[in-house]
């Protein structure tokens, strides 16, 4: 009995799939290939690169792709109701409260890691090693001379630590307190503010210690060092900085609608070094994003062939 039911069900699914895709049978597992897959284009160039590589490869698979600009938090609203189909570079350290909500409601699906090698922590412009001898070790930051150099009117007598914007959460303040460091964490307000401070500090050689992450194109242009962090008080996200995961998120109906694209995106990975090179080409050398991405695809068939073949099969 169960067998017959199974068979009937399979036949039903097969039929449904055939009706769903009015295309020839061979393309059945592509799903609704005439409806464009809408990929979220987030604000930073790294995400542009990853998204366009995924997009161009999806086009090779036979899909139509549309790139839709999206804010980092609003994108989850779009992914939740299918007005965005997928977002391939979601930094899990900055997803707000809306991400767990939509994930719990099963409106979006996390389809695994992008395998982007990331880094997060405290950075300083390289010349700081003469101001605070002993860097990159964190104890160098506690020396009175170093604190004095980093002190500003707003934070005096403490030294100033430039933290992430307030809406990204403030782990740095917790860690500074954990280690009794004489620092005041100043929230920066925006990514642009962080970058502007880093560039200005480099230009004017003013001392600066701040929270940052990579890969980021600002790291390619400015010579920075990473502080060797103090031991974590607790191994929790609040008291400890670990390299953030970068995941691929799709709308919950994605797998059923575009099965091959789903399989492809699951396999899709991105190498941080390659991404940084492409970012630099686009941002600083002024090359066209599409051309840069296409050049990479032409050169690296060995990398992406297995993803595409796996999706077809």
């Amino acid at each position, binding site marked *: 009995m169960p067998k017959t039911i199974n068979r009937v069900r399979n036949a039903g699914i097969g039929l449904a799939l055939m009706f769903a895709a009015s295309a020839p049978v061979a393309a059945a597992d592509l799903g609704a290939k005439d409806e464009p897959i809408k990929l*979220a*284009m987030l*604000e*930073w*160039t790294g995400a542009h690169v990853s998204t366009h590589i995924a997009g161009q490869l999806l086009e090779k698979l036979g899909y139509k792709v549309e790139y*839709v*600009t*999206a*804010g980092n*938090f*609003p*994108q*989850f*609203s*779009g*992914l939740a*109701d299918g*007005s*965005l189909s997928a977002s391939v570079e979601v930094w899990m350290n900055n997803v*707000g*409260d*809306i991400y767990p*909500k939509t994930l719990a409601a099963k409106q979006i699906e996390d389809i695994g890691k992008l395998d982007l090698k990331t880094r997060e922590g405290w950075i300083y412009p390289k010349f700081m090693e003469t101001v605070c001898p002993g860097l990159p070790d964190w104890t160098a930051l506690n020396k009175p001379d170093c604190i004095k150099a980093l002190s*500003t*009117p*707003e934070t*005096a*007598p403490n030294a100033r630590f*430039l933290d992430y*914007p*307030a*809406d*990204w959460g403030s782990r740095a303040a917790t860690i500074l307190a954990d280690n009794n460091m004489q620092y005041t964490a*100043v*929230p*920066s*307000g*925006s*990514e*642009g*503010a962080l*970058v*502007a*401070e880093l*560039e*200005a500090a*480099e*230009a*004017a*050689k*003013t001392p600066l210690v701040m929270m940052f992450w990579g890969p980021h*194109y600002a790291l390619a242009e400015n010579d920075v060092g990473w502080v060797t962090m103090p031991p974590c008080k607790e191994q929790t996200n609040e008291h400890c900085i670990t390299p953030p995961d970068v995941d691929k998120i799709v709308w919950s109906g994605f797998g059923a609608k575009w099965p091959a694209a789903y399989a492809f995106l699951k396999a899709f990975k991105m190498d941080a070094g390659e991404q940084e090179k492409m970012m630099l080409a686009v*941002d*600083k*050398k*002024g090359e066209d994003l599409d051309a840069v991405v296409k050049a990479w695809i032409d050169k690296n068939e060995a990398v992406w062939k297995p993803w595409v073949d796996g999706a077809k099969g």
Partner: protein
Amino acid sequence: MTAPAAIAPSAQRFAIAPALVPWCALAVLTALCLLLKTELPWLVNFPKEWTLPLASYINAVADVVVAVIQPGFRALSALLDAPMRGARLALAWLPWPAVMLAVAALALKSSGERLAIFALATLAYILLAGYWPQSMNTLALVLLAVPISIVLGFLLGVLGYARPRWRPVLNGALDLMQTVPAFAYLIPLLLLFGFGPVVGLIASAIYATPPMVRNTMLGLERVPAAISEAGLMSGCTRRQQFWQVEVPTALPQLLVGFNQTTMAALSMVIVAAIIGGFEDIGWEVLSSMRKAEFGQSILSGLVIALLAILIDRLTIGFAKAPKTGPTRAMRWMTPRRLALSLAIALALAVVIRLAAPDATLLPETGLRMQMGAVNQWLLGLVRDYAWFFNGVRNAVLYCLLLPMRVGISGSATPAMWGFSLPPSALAVYVVLVLALAVLAARRLGWRAAVAVLAAGLVLYTGFLDLPWPVFILAVALLAGQVGGPRLGLFAVAGFGLILVNGLWPQLVQSLYLCTLAVLLCLLVGGALGVWAAHSERVSRLLKPICDALQTMPQFVFLIPALMFFKVGEFTALIAITLYAIVPPIRYVEHGLRHVRADVVEAVEQMGATPLQTLLQAKLPLALPVVMLGLNQTIMAALSMLAIAALVGTRDLGQAVYVALGKADAGMGLIAGLSIAFLAILADRLIQAAVARSAAASR
């Protein structure tokens, strides 16, 4: 010792001012609060346990409500999405030569050949800067938002005109629509309408509707009775009377509303881009801000500024005929020729698209990349003049910002000023303030004395250490005496709401930033305005600067301010001041230039020096206009709070921004409403004060 003795002779005069009595009671309360501050810390820091989780209530209610009404809004969203897509596709399809031809023809018709040349230059700039497709997307948004706002605004305006009883409610709603920062309602809109450009469209429409409503009401009210009666006498039905007599008479005012609505819609482009959904020029500005690319942000910001000026002049040209009559070019461009030009433009578009269906036809320019040089130049400035910028920042911080924030009592510590004040110095300060108050009471009346005492108190404790009961009661008392008991109650209710939501520290930060910014703007902007009123050359020089400051997206100025002055309150102050300085310049200049000439001449005849003429004749006469400017300055400063949050403030704007990040609709709304409350309270206070002084002088 000396103070009471000095007051004594004038005690008689004080005794007859009943309005003074509550102030005396408040002074006693203040003294009590200050004495008990250390024992009862809740007088300064509103305890967390007393706050009400109103934001989470709102969220809980909103979750239920949204689930119920969401389908309707989603359907509306789908309905709006189609024309939006259509407009974008159509504008993307139009090749740029056709657009240029059409816009130039419209400009020629609207205000003549100079505007036509400006229009062509603007479009050429957009083309060369490489922002053509993005600009067309922006235009699509504006083209859809404006008709929605116009129709909605007209209907609401007619409603307000026909049913005066509804007008208070309507006015309140309009005030909210204009003063709640759009950041605050983006999340609820996102929940209701779903992700996409429609959210930006709705946000623009919300912000752009009020000017149309107000102008419609104004226009219809101002229809002269004689015209209305003429209509009635010739036997019009009510409908004919409205459409054929009243509306045509009110048309000029309606067109002014149209112009203001268009500008408001355009100014929301950036906010719409925060949601995303399509690549428009606002998105480009945000991206360049994110990368701290000053050059690119100027390049893209200038597109918005130029478009704003172009649309402004175009619509103004259609709204008002020039005083000197139409120019030759305008007469030449008859409606028939205009239609013909537009048809030619369309034909041109079809021909081009038939010949090259897929070509973008956009020139390749490396302008965007060359803007990197601007960044290098900026960083060079930072490198060479770091000592100067640091000096300015530290001076202002030590002498102005910190004393305002923590007061003399908090600043005069070894850590901050390098010394602490002995009790004797404190006594001198108290005596000084009292003496000033007495002087003010003698020369200007007891109100000035109260103001001096209040300023002395704030300077001593700082904004942060001011006991909240004193602050709320003082503002409520002021509001009650100036604007009537209802305004006083409104102040108490508003501050109470902020207090129980745990937003008091943010409110205090906002107040102190805005107060400082407004004072700075009045001083600097007022001086510039006076100068411009007396010098044609300065006036001409300031005009484009003011235009640019008001139409350029504020994000553009944040980058250099950040690089020069670092993250912090000083940078926020600069950003707010840059935006809010325009109204005092404009209003002071306008007010001084339109003072009655005969009065000024009479004063000069009496042998007054130019300074005396200015201070004792012109400025007092221009006061109503200047007060209007003050009102606008406060509105501008408050509206900048949400944007200044991007440079790391801790005020209400930051609360709105954090709520946006966390998709916390309730907190966002409450923080946004708090800003709106401040704006409305300030507006009503100033209006009431102007009305009082006008009544007194009559």
